[in-house]
């Protein structure tokens, strides 16, 4: 092994290691500003200068950018090094304002810390400091350019990792200014990471702004529930439990128990590396809004009776006992434990298989992936994006599982070929990271197959990764499933549009083999064959297509029990509403789309009387004579381990979190156990023909109303956030500028869309990414009940009637 001399002692190193790595590994204190382990080396701040002697020549070298060479002599504490640190800090502090008491980063600021360690006590600079105006660059972020020390971390992150194009560096030298163009909002879903990347308070978050200080915060390591990627996060709260462990009560307020201060990324190299999306980061203010506090029962005159848990559960259990044919629908948003408890209630206590979490239009008898691949799961992993030569994406990744975007950008930079098959240009094809292959609405399958046959040469003998969202055309899914089953170099990454869908499938929250799926359950409710319906953490009126059927189904069901955290519209049809905890209030495990079972710690105290869903199911099981003696979510999981075979060897509760301190900068590799899926199945399984009727071409001529996901508006929790309002386009339909011009509409115009003889008032917004003829509505249907006319993802627009002048939505 080659050796260097570090502060007089011999140290071995690996080839290609930088001096900084060696020094930190050896426990030497080398301060840094522009260096970040996850970003390319910039070496501009000169804070990490160390004295180096090589071939008899002494000099100062940046430790972060200098590769160690055999025979080098390095001093991290010599006079020259100390003088360099001192002078660089003095120069950095020339312009830095002394507003630490005001600054949000005060207390967790690298500049503060390093100045205390190495810096001068006072400045010799006698001239006015450079000043910039505070900049508002969107609903999430504030820029304080005056505080900036021009380390370029933000630009490096935004350009190379986030893949954004709208972060610029203006001017040069002393007046270098970072940020988007004037009066522009940031448009990248990873922009929140800038707050964490900035070594000081030049970029701060609006959710956290001035509310508290870092030393008041307790950081709870947990998992983001927003999407099926399961990004690892730290949830920062002021108080987790009402009483601290000691004999004294800390001064404070009760509201703190239900308030998340902010969310930060946590390192997990397998899943989210270090970065989280803005949806993960800024979706936490919903926690206090519109919550159900205690069990509510409907009296005979239709008013609500605020009850306690015993009374409510007894009454519900009595009704459930009487019910002949109960059923449960869900949104796959709970933990694995809750899903298992629900399964136990239905499959083992009531002995009925009517449970499903899929949306009705996707609730097929046969899961296309399972029918072809042998198991309902992706066989690739997120890390496969870094290995694949060709990546074929079906659907809009940015709106469904945005977190994998950093890897897509990296793959594109690495030289992999990316294709996006989508009716409109989504982010990656629009920004040039991928090639857009247009898909005609109604002819998706044919376009997909013709794409594959056209590009046969490019795909031949390459490792191909299919990234497909689980709500895309089942025919495409089955095609890919078959392809992946037969071809060893092809992998599949199935993006789950519902957060814990994989876990729900794994623990058996599905109607197999003889139960009713969501579509049949709703049909059964409508014709009266189902007399007890549990709606668990899903809002059918906002999420499901064909709203009239849903409404009729809810109206015709004798007893509707709603388990929810919020007073959503389906509670109007409920006979009883039970409050359940929101994800950050509940302990449990979640399975991500590639099969990692991860432990979510409870960051907050449950709101008022709300309880975790598994507790409610447990009480019902006991009241119905079943056997459930769990005392905690951990108990439930130990039972899951006995029953669910793939989960046999997992121990997600035994998780050790590393300290979140300075050594955190040294890259660590965490060993996370993944659900074991037998690869044997792939070879022994003979793909059966998929039982869907061969796809018929259904092209609509003229204007098509097309539904798509939305990163914020489509999320069950995120759209409730006041913070994200500017990015949530209420009542908005996106069209291409040509199409809008053809109809004589301006950007922001109010129009009435006539679809199937019903009229809807919406706003028009121009989006040049959308091809002519397509009118795209995104997200949940809480503002415009377009699902009254949408029986599937698209419908024909009969007429467009402009109303009034342009009003910005």
């Amino acid at each position, binding site marked *: 092994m080659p050796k260097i001399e570090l502060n007089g002692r011999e140290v071995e190193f690996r080839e290609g290691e930088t001096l900084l790595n060696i020094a930190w590994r050896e426990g030497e204190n080398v301060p840094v500003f522009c260096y970040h382990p996850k970003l390319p080396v910039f070496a501009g701040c000169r804070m990490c200068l160390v004295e180096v002697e090589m071939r008899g020549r002494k000099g100062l070298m940046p430790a972060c950018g200098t590769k160690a060479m055999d025979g080098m002599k390095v001093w991290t504490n010599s006079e020259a090094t100390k003088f360099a640190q001192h002078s660089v800090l003095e120069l950095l502090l020339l312009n830095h304002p002394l507003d630490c008491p005001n600054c949000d980063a005060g207390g967790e600021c690298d500049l503060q810390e390093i100045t205390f360690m190495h810096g001068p006590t006072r400045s010799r600079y006698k001239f006015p400091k450079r000043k910039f105006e505070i900049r508002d660059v969107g609903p999430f972020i504030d820029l304080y350019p005056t505080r900036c020390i021009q380390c370029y971390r933000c630009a490096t992150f935004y350009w190379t990792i986030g893949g954004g194009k709208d972060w610029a560096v203006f001017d040069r030298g002393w007046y270098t200014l970072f940020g988007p163009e004037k009066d522009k909002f940031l448009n990248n879903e990873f922009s929140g990471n800038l707050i964490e990347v900035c070594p000081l308070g030049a970029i701060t978050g609006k959710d956290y702004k*001035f509310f*508290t200080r870092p030393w008041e915060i307790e950081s709870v390591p947990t998992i983001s529930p927003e999407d099926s990627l399961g990004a690892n996060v730290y949830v920062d709260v002021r108080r987790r439990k009402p009483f601290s462990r000691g004999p004294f009560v800390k001064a404070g307020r009760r509201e703190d128990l239900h308030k998340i201060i902010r969310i930060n990324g946590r390192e997990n190299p397998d899943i989210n590396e270090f970065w989280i999306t803005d949806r993960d980061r800024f979706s936490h203010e919903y926690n206090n809004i519109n919550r159900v506090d205690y069990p509510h029962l409907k009296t005979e005159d239709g008013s609500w009776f605020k009850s306690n848990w015993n009374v409510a559960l007894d009454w519900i259990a009595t009704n459930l006992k009487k019910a002949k044919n109960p059923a449960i629908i869900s949104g796959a948003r709970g933990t694995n434990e809750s899903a298992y408890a629900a399964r136990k209630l239905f499959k083992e206590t009531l002995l009925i298989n009517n449970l499903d979490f899929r949306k009705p239009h996707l609730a097929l008898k046969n899961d296309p992936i399972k029918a072809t691949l042998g198991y309902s799961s992706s066989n690739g992993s997120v890390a496969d994006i870094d290995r694949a030569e060709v990546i074929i994406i079906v659907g809009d990744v940015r709106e469904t599982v945005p977190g994998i975007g950093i890897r897509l950008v990296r793959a594109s930079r690495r030289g992999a070929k990316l294709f996006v098959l989508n009716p409109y240009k989504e982010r990656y094809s629009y920004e040039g990271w991928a090639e857009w292959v247009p898909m005609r609405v109604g002819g998706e399958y044919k376009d997909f197959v013709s794409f594959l046959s056209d590009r046969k040469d490019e795909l031949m003998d390459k490792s191909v990764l299919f990234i497909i969202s689980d709500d895309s055309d089942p025919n495409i899914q089955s095609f890919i499933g078959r392809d992946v089953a037969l071809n060893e170099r092809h992998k599949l990454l199935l993006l789950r549009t519902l957060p814990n869908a994989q876990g729900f499938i794994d623990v058996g929250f599905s109607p197999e083999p003889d139960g009713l799926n969501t579509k049949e359950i709703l049909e059964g409710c409508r014709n009266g064959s189902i007399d007890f319906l549990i709606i668990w953490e899903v809002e059918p009126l906002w999420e499901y297509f064909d709203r009239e059927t849903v409404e009729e189904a809810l109206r015709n069901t004798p007893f509707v029990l709603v388990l929810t955290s919020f007073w959503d519209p389906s509670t109007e049809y409920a006979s009883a509403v039970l409050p359940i905890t929101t994800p950050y209030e509940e302990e449990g495990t979640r399975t991500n789309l590639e099969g990692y079972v991860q432990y979510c710690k409870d960051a907050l105290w449950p709101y008022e009387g709300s309880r975790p869903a598994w507790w409610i199911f447990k009480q019902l099981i006991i009241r119905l004579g079943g056997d459930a003696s769990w005392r905690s979510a951990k108990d439930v999981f130990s039972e899951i381990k006995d029953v669910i075979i793939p989960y046999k060897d997992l121990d997600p509760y035994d998780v050790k979190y590393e300290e979140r301190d300075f050594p955190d900068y040294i890259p660590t590799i965490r060993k996370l156990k993944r659900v074991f899926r037998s690869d044997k199945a792939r070879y022994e399984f003979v793909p059966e023909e998929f039982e869907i009727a061969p796809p018929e071409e259904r092209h609509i001529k003229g204007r098509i109303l097309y539904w798509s996901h939305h990163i914020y508006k489509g999320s069950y929790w995120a759209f409730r956030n006041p913070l994200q309002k500017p990015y949530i386009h209420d009542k908005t339909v996106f069209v291409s500028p040509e199409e809008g011009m053809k109809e004589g509409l301006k950007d922001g115009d109010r129009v009435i869309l006539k679809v199937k003889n019903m009229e809807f008032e919406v706003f028009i917004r121009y989006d040049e990414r959308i091809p002519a003829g397509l009118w795209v509505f995104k997200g949940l249907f809480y503002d415009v009940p377009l699902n009254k006319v949408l029986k599937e993802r698209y419908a024909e627009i009969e007429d467009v009637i402009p109303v009034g002048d342009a009003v910005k939505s």
Partner: protein
Amino acid sequence: MLEGLKAMLQGLIITFKHFLLNIATNRFTVQYPKKRRKLPDRARWALSLQWHEDLTERCVGCQLCAAICPSEAIYIEGAVNPLDSPVGKGERYAMTWIWDATRCLYCGFCVEACPEEAIVMTKIYEMATDRREDLIWHKERLYEAKKQQFGEKPTFAWMGFYRKREEMGKPIELARIWHEQEEKYYKNRGKGFDMHDRYKRFLLDERNIEVYKEDLGE
């Protein structure tokens, strides 16, 4: 037996000595609610918050007091200072300011830590109440507290101990004078310099009182 008597006598002598001393120096039990003894100038009791001259709040909500508080008696929530009707002078201000008297040690660290000189310790010591909630003071009461202190002046805890002289603001001027005198005292300790005398001389010094008045806007 004899030893017991001796001890008893010794005790009686001490008692008698103090009896005589108290009579000689005129020290009697104060009839408390009717009469109140004047507190020493550096008595440190309930916290109070200060205003700027233009009646905006001094506190910027930096929470350094809460950070230094050894018994976690201070709780602050910051917020953005509205530009149209500013509450304080900074970008942020304290939206919630809670002082828990039941937890407070009256150590004065918070006064010392405050970069804006917003906290002072008053001489309000009559905080007894039969409701626990009354011992938890909120922002309004803390800003009013200065007025309730029976005509006495608020105390600056050991403010200025660690500050550079040229950095001192006006309220610290007082502490500086104290500090100088204290230094002198420690130098002359055991050389016949009387502590009590020092206080007396301090109070007689008109200059000090003027500074005092200026600071408090009295």
